[in-house]
């Protein structure tokens, strides 16, 4: 067993200097990948941005008591797709109106506050879909206190489509970077396998099977790939955390820094690290095979 373990790190033992440089480079790239991955995970592509901008407005009938409207808002807030539901009474609605359209104060002088109270409903970024919005809208429309629901249903599908395309584009870009990175790793592994070919031949001559060398190297690559991905993603996550704290504006696009500590984020990092470990092992085996077939 000890022999197996010593072969896991055979590249480090035979070519420590160049491999250390490669590892530093890979770690830095994993930091970038980790930063991009966490940004993508938290933002959900363009979903967080859209969810931040989009709201459903439920205009209430006149003379609905505030307590009743508040209770209704709380009920709406309990729906699964809803992030928040806040009641604005007619007075607050009037103030908002004046902030948006200053100089229209005379409208009120004619016959009191012309604006009704309303409930502003915000959707969770991960539930911003046609179905999610329909669920909320139909729930609102079934309430007798609600006079009108403004959900932008005529342009919402186009907006959601645009958001979906933007998300796919972001994920595709990330995937392309990931694929390019591992293609580069494969070339590095191949180059290293070629440069160490004499040492592997030496070991094979002395009874160490070539297959065991290849598998042991792949196992070592998997372990180092996992550790590098985990460390790189943690470092990238740290940088993202600091950035979100320094620039709160980005929270609307990416999300709050606290989301980095959610269990699902940690699970995603573990899955990413495991995937990186598998890809590192595959790059090692492919590089080994490429080096051997190139030598024949």
């Amino acid at each position, binding site marked *: 067993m*000890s*022999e197996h*373990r*010593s*072969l896991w790190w*055979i590249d480090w*033992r*035979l070519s420590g200097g160049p491999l250390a440089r490669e590892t530093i480079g890979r770690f830095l790239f994993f930091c970038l990948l980790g930063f991009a991955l966490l940004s993508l995970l938290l933002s959900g592509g363009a979903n967080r941005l859209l969810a931040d901008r989009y709201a459903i407005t439920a205009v209430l009938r006149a003379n609905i008591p505030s307590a009743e409207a508040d209770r209704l808002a709380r009920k709406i807030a309990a729906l699964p797709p809803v992030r928040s539901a806040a009641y604005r009474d007619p007075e607050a609605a009037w103030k908002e109106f004046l902030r948006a359209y200053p100089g229209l104060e005379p409208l009120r002088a004619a016959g009191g506050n012309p604006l009704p109270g309303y409930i502003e409903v915000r959707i969770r970024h991960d539930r911003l879909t046609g179905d999610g919005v329909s669920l909320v809208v139909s729930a609102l429309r079934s309430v007798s206190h609600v006079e009108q629901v403004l959900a932008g249903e005529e342009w919402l599908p186009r907006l959601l489509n645009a958001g979906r395309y933007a998300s796919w584009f972001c994920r595709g870009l990330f995937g392309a970077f990931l694929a390019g990175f591992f293609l580069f790793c494969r070339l590095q592994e191949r180059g290293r396998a070629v440069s160490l070919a*004499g*040492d592997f*031949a*030496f*070991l094979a*001559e*002395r*009874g*160490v*099977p070539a297959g065991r060398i290849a598998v042991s190297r792949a196992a070592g690559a998997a372990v180092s790939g996992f550790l590098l991905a985990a460390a790189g993603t943690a470092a990238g996550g740290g940088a993202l955390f600091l950035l979100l704290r320094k620039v709160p504006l980005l929270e609307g696009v990416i999300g709050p820094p606290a989301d980095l500590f959610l269990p699902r984020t940690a699970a995603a990092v573990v899955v990413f690290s495991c995937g990186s470990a598998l890809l590192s092992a595959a790059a090692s085996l492919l590089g080994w095979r490429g080096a051997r077939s190139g030598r024949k």
Partner: protein
Amino acid sequence: MIEAFRLGVFSRGSTLWDGLDFAFGDSSAWVVAAPPSSGKTLLLSILRGDRRPDAGNVVVSGESLYRGSDALARAYRASCGHVQEQTIADLRLTVEGLFRRSALAGGDVRDGERKERTDRLLAMVGLPGTSAWRIAEMSNSERVRAFLAAELLRGPKVLFCDGVVAAAGIPCREMLWGLFRALAREGNTVVLAERTIPERWALAAGDGASVGPFRVYRLPIPGTKGDPG
């Protein structure tokens, strides 16, 4: 015990040699002397299990090396040490790198133990304090002695040396004479392939046996019957 029966090699469109029998006993040192291009390196690679002969068979401790199990062949190769006549493949390495690689081939040797044994072995072959030297910067004699010391790190049961005595040079012959005989006395088998056997060694070993183009000498081992040491 390494035995070779009716060995034959066909090379370059003709028969290089055929029907040769060898027997290399345990705890002994042998010199196989032959002129250039007679197939000494080839013979060693066949005896090591690296190259299947075109005819005949090699038997190690009663088991066929080429017709037996792969595991047996691997175990035998793992117990062998081999110093090549010349190599340019390892010029990028340092002497310490040679020892590190050799330790890998022999399983895990702790770093501290490896360094301590490295220093001892290098001093034994007349290269004390050279572990940081680059192979590319060493002379042929120094290289071959460094390679020999690195092989000895694993304590091989069978040691094959190809042209080591000639490459090491006359000043190192006495040291090698003592080293090979000491290894044999400790129970190892040493097989040396040389173009010529040094005169003093030939005087001690007697006439030797003629096998095809080869002349096979058994070196006298101190402490064994009939040898004064």
